[in-house]
């Protein structure tokens, strides 16, 4: 019973997270970015833009990533134990507590396989002009599986939140946001922050939110 209620709470949390993401992304930002690989916005009377990072900035990103990876791997607590763990190590820790990530991954694979079979069936039904009600029935089944896959993926990334791999992904997205952000000075564009440390000290939450939404696009690039 207790396990069941935990399961329900987790599903609700996952759905909530999906909903929040949907609301935050504006179509016009994506359109602007697709056209030109950059997107401009105004904030507190200043003009900002996020753009693709160039080759030298990519090298800077790589250097920062290497340093971060090295420090995450070596960081120890007062007792001399390593503070950060890789995904594989976390799997072992969770397994000892009765949470089997490999089982979760197996379930994900089997759901994906089930979805492929249903996709083929639905595609065939569409090609044969089968009754709409039959197509809708299969579509609903696929929708349910997709939702289950999304929820399981969110659960998995929730459990792996503190893994070295995940911390690196978050770090890289912050560095990309810093490297790609420029501010207009007169007619020229210049770096909005002098260094990554300055960027990290920024307390303007509204600006950070605007950058974060746009940096989602940059991560695809």
């Amino acid at each position: 019973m207790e396990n069941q209620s935990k399961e329900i709470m987790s599903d609700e949390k996952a759905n909530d997270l999906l909903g929040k993401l949907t609301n935050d992304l504006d179509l016009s930002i994506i359109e602007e970015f697709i056209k030109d690989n950059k997107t401009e916005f105004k904030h507190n009377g200043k003009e900002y833009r996020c753009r693709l990072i160039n080759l030298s900035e990519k090298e800077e990103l790589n250097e920062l990533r290497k340093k971060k990876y090295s420090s995450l791997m070596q960081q120890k607590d007062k007792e001399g134990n390593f503070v950060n763990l890789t995904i594989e190590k976390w799997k072992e820790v969770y397994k000892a507590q009765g949470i089997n990530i490999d089982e979760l991954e197996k379930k994900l694979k089997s759901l994906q396989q089930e979805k492929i079979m249903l996709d083929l069936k639905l595609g065939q039904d569409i090609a044969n002009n089968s009754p709409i009600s039959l197509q809708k029935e299969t579509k609903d089944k696929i929708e349910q599986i997709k939702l289950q896959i999304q929820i399981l993926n969110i659960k998995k990334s929730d459990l792996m939140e503190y893994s070295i791999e995940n911390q690196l992904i978050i770090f890289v997205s912050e560095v990309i946001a810093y490297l790609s952000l420029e501010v207009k000075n007169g007619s020229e564009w210049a770096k909005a922050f002098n260094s990554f440390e300055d960027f990290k000290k920024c307390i303007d939450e509204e600006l950070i939110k605007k950058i974060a939404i746009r940096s989602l696009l940059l991560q695809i690039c």
Partner: protein
Amino acid sequence: MLIESKIRELAKSDKYMNLFYATKELNGIRLFRNDCDFSRIQHMFLNYLYFYEIIFKEIANKKINDFILTNEIYEDAYYYWKSKNINKEEKTDKKVNTYFHVSNKIKFPEEKSNG
């Protein structure tokens, strides 16, 4: 996942479908401000333009019902099924065409004997 849906929404729109056809037909009309070094998001957008071009052609040729456009799941399922069956269709088409040409159109020259 979410961004992909938004990119699809743009690619599927009349505005971008028309622009896509125009770029193929006319010189000087461009989809992007850059001519080369396309970013991954631009490649993704291009892929979806081709994806919807195929879907819209199938609807125009009355191969499928436009009901498919009501949900991404229908579009994906049909496209996936089509990609898996395209080789079979090509083989069938080739057989039909070969039969047609050989039986009705081509007059092979008679072989002349050297003797």
